[in-house]
């Protein structure tokens, strides 16, 4: 994917500056992570001794959630692919991924939990492992769908067509040919989903805390905010160690290169039965996993307490609270600011990576804060900057967000820096155009779509961030996501629903992301 570092010597001071920046940034990202591991080393044994049950709970929840997400998402991907459903069904199936997981959890509470809008009485015990798996699956099965669908699309029709021509039945050609060919993509999908679940804080925070079900991500939070501990930061860092240990096996899996897209294809005949099954699966998923919870959330947000009808009072009470208003303003400001910086920084780093191997290595390290559970980075930020004046300001959060989300911005930029662009730049250089002019006149205009895509990929991630924010926020740097969590823990479900609806509306620009660009 990366452009060849051709014509390196012709590249002047520009990349050297970029290399220095890349190295500096990756050091800034690694220091907090290493700090946490050092600080927590002494506490690992006591965590293993006292909280082994949480390790097992985390492990089985993550495995079950991954299995459910990959089987459901993968099943939908195979069905829609085989039945050649139109492209717009993609949007229906991906919609669940655009709802942040903790908002999904709140939506399921609104639909099925105590005091729900459908029946009033609890329909499914949502404060439970079942609830956590339900919320996880409705968010991460669409992710598995998107990733696996891309793998299958890349494989094209030819292998399965060849198998059919040689007399294999549809199911046998699927098992023997198409799925084995998709194995690498499947492995990458499993890895990514499992890592995401392991690091997910919002869902077990909303649905686990009240039932005293902890995962490692929420246990780290509970340890940090436990008044009885003499050194809460070390205890939380000990938990972070286990998060890293559980995440490590995932890094040994193959990376998710989906291979080259095959050329033209002969349309396979689609049996009417297959088509029916595929269509009904798509609609069942859309209705049950997307429409039902979101509709319930919407109803709850506009419902007066203990009565039916329509009211704006839930939004009104929300706006009367200073910290809720400030949270919304902070979140939007941070989302716009961080996405902008991530997009530009991603471009600068990708360009530096083109010119220098050192920079390329440094840039690779920036994936760590993105892939490792966010709890680790948050604890690291407290360790390194918790005593400075940055603490309790929105800048403190922004720095954390930047380190975490620069990776997805970078990925976009790397994909965009093609050899053709390098050649164009080289031509300009030969004609004596200065580096800044080349950037301004050639690179930025040509890369504008990618910059916009980078921006739109990072924007929703920051807007609804809770994993880092829950640990790092302080009076003055509240965020909207943390507000939702706090309102839920205060039992104020309606105002929480109102805030969640506002977040969903503010997140709508994500829909403008060109397909396939989503991180």
């Amino acid at each position: 994917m990366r452009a060849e570092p051709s014509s390196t010597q012709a590249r002047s001071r520009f990349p050297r500056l970029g290399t220095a920046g890349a190295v500096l940034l990756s050091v800034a990202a690694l220091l907090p992570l290493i700090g946490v591991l050092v600080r927590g080393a002494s506490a690992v044994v006591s965590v293993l001794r006292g909280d082994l049950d949480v390790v097992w709970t985390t492990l089985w929840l993550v495995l079950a959630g991954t299995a459910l997400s990959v089987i459901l998402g993968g099943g939908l991907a195979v069905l829609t692919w085989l039945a050649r459903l139109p492209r717009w069904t993609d949007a229906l199936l991906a919609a669940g991924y655009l709802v942040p997981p903790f908002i999904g959890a709140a939506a399921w509470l609104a639909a099925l939990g105590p005091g729900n809008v459908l029946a009033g009485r609890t329909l499914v015990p949502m404060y439970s492992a079942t609830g956590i798996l339900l919320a996880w699956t409705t968010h991460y099965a669409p992710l598995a769908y998107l990733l696996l669908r891309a793998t299958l699309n890349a494989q094209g029709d030819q292998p399965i067509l060849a198998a059919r021509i040689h007399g294999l039945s549809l199911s046998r050609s699927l098992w023997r040919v198409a799925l084995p060919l998709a194995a690498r993509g499947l492995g990458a999908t499993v890895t990514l989903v499992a890592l995401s679940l392991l690091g997910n804080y919002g869902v077990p925070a909303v649905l686990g805390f009240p039932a005293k079900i902890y995962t490692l991500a929420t246990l780290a939070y509970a340890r940090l905010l436990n008044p009885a501990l003499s050194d809460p930061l070390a205890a939380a860092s000990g938990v972070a160690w286990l998060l890293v240990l559980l995440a490590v096996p995932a890094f040994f899996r193959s990376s998710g290169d989906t291979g080259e897209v095959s050329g033209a294809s002969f349309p396979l005949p689609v049996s009417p039965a297959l088509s029916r099954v595929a269509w009904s699966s798509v609609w069942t998923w859309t209705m049950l996993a997307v429409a039902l919870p979101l509709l319930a959330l919407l109803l709850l947000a506009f419902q007066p307490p203990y009565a039916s009808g329509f009211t704006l009072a839930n939004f009104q009470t929300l706006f009367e609270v200073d910290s809720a208003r400030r949270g919304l303003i902070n979140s939007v400001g941070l989302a716009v600011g961080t996405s902008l910086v991530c997009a530009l920084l991603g471009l600068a780093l990708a360009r530096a990576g083109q010119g220098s191997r050192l920079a390329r290595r440094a840039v690779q390290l920036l994936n760590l804060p993105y892939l490792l559970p966010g709890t680790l980075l948050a604890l690291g930020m407290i360790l390194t900057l918790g005593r400075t004046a940055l603490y309790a300001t929105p800048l403190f959060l922004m720095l954390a967000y930047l380190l975490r989300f620069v990776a997805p911005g970078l990925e976009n930029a790397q994909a965009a820096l093609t050899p053709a662009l390098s050649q164009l730049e080289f031509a300009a250089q030969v004609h004596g155009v200065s580096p800044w002019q080349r950037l301004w006149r050639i690179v930025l205009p040509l890369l504008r779509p990618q910059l916009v895509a980078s921006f739109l990929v990072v924007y929703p991630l920051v807007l609804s961030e809770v994993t880092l924010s829950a640990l790092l926020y302080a009076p003055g740097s509240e965020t909207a996501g943390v507000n939702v969590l706090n309102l839920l823990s205060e039992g104020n479900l309606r105002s929480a629903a109102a805030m969640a609806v506002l977040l969903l509306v503010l997140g709508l620009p994500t829909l403008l992301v060109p397909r396939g660009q989503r991180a």
Partner: protein
Amino acid sequence: MKNLALLPVFLGLFSALPAGAQALNGTVTLYTSEVLPDVQVQIDGFRKLNPNVDVKVFRSGTGEVTAKLNAELAAGNVQADLLWVADPTYFESLSKKNLFEALNVRGVRVPSSALYGDGTYGEVRKLYNVIGVNTKVVSALPAGFADLKKPAFKNKLAMPSPLFSGGALATAGTLSRTYGWTYFQALATNGLKIEQSNPITTTKLINGEYGAAILVDYSLRREAAKGAPLAVVYPREGAILVSTPIAVLKSSPNKAAAQAFVRYLYSGEGQANFSKLSYLPVVPGAPRPAGVPASIFTLPSADAYIAQNKADISARFSALFNLK
């Protein structure tokens, strides 16, 4: 210039005025376990009188607030000017470490019984643990805590976890000291369930998952006023006072404004706000909230006992109800 000559006179005049008359400004940060909409009412009232003071709030459960403050104390980077949570033992320890300012309550009428720790922290309003009953689930109201052992309440009982909620710790400590652990053993046999927090327990009680629960009174009253099928029973044996004091931290860079906020809570207006929010005011003569008995009979305070035996109470309760 003639005016300049008058300047020292003005300056002298200002310094002679009491602290409350100075125009306050800057930021005050409040660390609290109070629910946000309730705190906001008091902040709005305070800011009407002191428009140049910005009040910021960090709000979470008592345990989490104290942990955050502990971490900031350890790091020497304390953000809080004011502390207001439901853990009198924590206040006692910080007061003994000399981390609190003496409260400046000049100009407001505060009964001496509401001030603790040589006047370094004080009660601004009262709330009690009582029995909340869902009248759709349970037909006959219990008269007191002893009735909860009866078969009529079998598998219909709940209370929040003392490990999480300062209020529930008061319940566990007071009832176990007064009636011995046999009381909670009997409730365990009768199917008492332990939920995490007061709000979660209240929600489930309202939705009919439980028939009766030991909860703080103000939120029960408020939800009942909104139409929830709830009855509030002040137990025959006595209600349990949940102490939620407030204090000004010595490290505060804006003590004058922090003290003014405390004085506002004790003022006629602040106390009336509490009453409107269904809390009981501490200043005599302040209006009482609707639906509250004329006098509330309480069990003797177990705060000192709880402070000494916190770990033991938590451990025995956890063992009895299989908490982690």
